[in-house]
């Protein structure tokens, strides 16, 4: 490695103001000094609406722990979008995400990804991971909430003879139940793994977590198990309420809300994170003006949306482009504060 660094230093004398990686990218699509990248190696269909995308990450990636997620950047119509996806392969295996076509980005990933494509990546994160010492486990999942738990099952079940894991998984039908065949095989092979499938279509109702009746039937000793849950928000809310009542121990993984708050709203509370300042801004006040009115040193230039001197990273919320009326924004986007107003609560990295 030290030789490599010396080589890079030496090479950059020839490539400045570019980095040597910028030139290496002509032959290696994963080479970048600025942005971690991954090369798609396989796209495997799972159900009619979901695929598993395997990728080979470039330098800078850390091996994931079972249950962790990564931010994945994908280009749609030339524009980069970022979402978080759980890694579905076991710890120690090559990374992959399993994506169900819901929403713009996931749909584009499911329908448009081909081997050889480049994905943009951030290293794995998250503390929805297996306990450090072995103990009986209960996994409660619904829909695509199975993905991080699948990583845990793949990590634990085939490798540990003492594994004791019950998975209660809810889905609409056998056809759109993720990893179904693999799970059935695992139950055949490993006595320490038990699978309870809850098909809402067949049962005519959802798994009811308002009382303990369904759980008692599915997994009688559920109170003695360390419990993990992942799925839609209402499913997790119900699970958390139940475990609170029963004073049990439950770990929950929530997927970030897809729909941002404040759509259609006008104005809102603007938070300037670095300056630790909050102001109310109406629909006629640009984010730049709001910051300046609050006495902040805002970057600015032409103040009419042409020079981009004022661009500031958005941390949360959405903004309205005063020129088009379009409401837009995702965390990490750079917004032109001089031609943007708040569309609901907005937080800026300024």
């Amino acid at each position: 490695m030290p030789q490599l660094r010396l080589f890079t230093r030496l090479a950059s004398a020839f490539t400045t103001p570019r980095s040597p990686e910028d030139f290496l990218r002509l032959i290696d699509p994963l080479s970048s000094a600025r942005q971690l990248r991954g090369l798609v190696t396989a796209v495997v269909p799972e159900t009619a609406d979901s695929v598993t995308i395997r990728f080979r990450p470039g330098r800078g990636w850390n091996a994931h722990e079972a249950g962790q997620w990564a931010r994945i950047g994908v280009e749609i119509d030339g524009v980069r979008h970022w979402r978080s996806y759980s890694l579905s392969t076991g710890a120690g295996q090559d990374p992959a995400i399993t994506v169900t076509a819901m929403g713009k980005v996931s749909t584009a990933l499911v329908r448009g990804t081909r081997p050889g494509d480049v994905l943009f990546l951030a290293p794995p994160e998250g503390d929805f991971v297996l306990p450090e010492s072995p103990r009986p486990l209960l996994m409660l999942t619904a829909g695509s909430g199975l993905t991080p738990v699948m990583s845990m099952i793949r990590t634990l079940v085939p490798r540990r003879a003492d594994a004791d894991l019950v998975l209660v998984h809810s889905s609409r039908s056998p056809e759109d139940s993720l990893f179904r065949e693999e799970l059935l095989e695992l139950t055949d092979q490993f006595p320490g793994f038990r699978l309870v499938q809850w098909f809402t279509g067949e049962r005519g109702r959802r798994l009811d977590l308002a009382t303990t009746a369904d759980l008692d039937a599915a997994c009688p000793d559920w109170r003695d198990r360390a419990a993990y849950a992942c799925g839609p928000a209402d499913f997790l809310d119900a699970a958390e309420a139940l475990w609170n009542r029963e004073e049990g121990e439950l770990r929950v993984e929530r997927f970030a809300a897809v729909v941002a708050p404040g759509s259609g709203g006008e104005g809102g509370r603007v938070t300037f994170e670095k300056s630790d300042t909050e102001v109310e801004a109406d629909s006629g006040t640009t984010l730049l003006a709001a910051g300046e009115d609050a006495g902040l040193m805002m970057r600015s230039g032409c103040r009419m949306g042409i020079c981009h001197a004022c661009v500031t990273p958005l941390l949360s919320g959405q903004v309205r482009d005063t020129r088009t009326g379009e409401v837009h924004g995702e965390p990490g986007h750079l917004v032109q504060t001089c031609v943007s107003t708040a569309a609901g609560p907005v937080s800026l990295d300024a």
Partner: protein
Amino acid sequence: MTIVTPFLLDSGQRTAAPKPSTAAHLTDAQVEDLGRELDALRESVVATRGAKDAAYIRRVIATQRSLELAGRATLLLAKHKPAWIAGTGMLTVAKILENMEIGHNVLHGQWDWMRDPDIHSTTWEWDFVTPSKAWQHTHNDLHHTWTNVLGKDRDVGYNVFRVDEGQPWQWWNLGNPLYNAMLAPFFEFGIAIYDLEFDQVREGTKSKADLKQGLKALGAKFLKQVAKDYVATPAAAMLTGSGKQALTATVTANAARNVWAHAVIFCGHFPEGVDTFTEEQIEGETRGDWYLRQMLGSANISGSKLMHLMTGNLSFQIEHHLFPDLPSNRYAEVAVKVREICERYGLPYTTGPLPKQVGSYWAKIFRLALP
């Protein structure tokens, strides 16, 4: 060159801002209509920006990097004449592409919509001695906002040249043509010094601390640029006994790029037919007025596709000034519509082939050397 004296307004005109004579026939309502049409034109491009445009800029970047790499590699054998010629040629073209179609336009934020941190106005540093940030301030913030307003747009003559009758004659303007000829091969250093804004420091509108910071940033960039072209590349070529020839090659490539960039940029606002404005004229300026000023204050260069590419599409200076942050590869289609709009509103649309436009601004540089 037209300087309109105030108060020559038709009774129908309410605004305090008198229009230049080339647009004096337009009513305020017509100017606002013009503004709306141009807004709609901008929107139509924004709405259709997409994968094809992203592929375009990536293709240009890949071509540029391949040329630069191949050029520098070829110069390792620069003692052989064909290698010197080929290497210098490739490096020159690479540098021109980097500065114009890539650097200038990326730094305008034309590609920010892609949200690619590798092709973004906040991260890009170009192969030009002035640091990106310094240039973005004097060019994007000042020149593009105050285009051709005497006393506001320092790009009108860059504090050195007399390029407008509205600029009072001084004895040292006699050197106008000489300064210009001297500037061309060292254009990047001229711009670097200009971006430091010594005049603003003298006037007290820029602090000494800011100047010091600017000098430090420029110093660091200068050393890296010089080390690359005039130390590292010739040193590597010494391995084949081509050190001296590689040095003359990189000097030539930089000078050729400088002469080209200087020619193209001076064609943007200095040829005959381009209007300048007074500060009184832009008081109370509306969006429509602003568009009007950009159109009347800029000049295009006509030519082939290759010509447009090599000028970084600054051959569409009028379109670039109307919409500085639209992707450069779309200016050609925008130009067709802008030209049609100009005809309909009876407005001049200044354009001509490169030799004619270069001749035109040189004639002006000579003429205005005298009182």
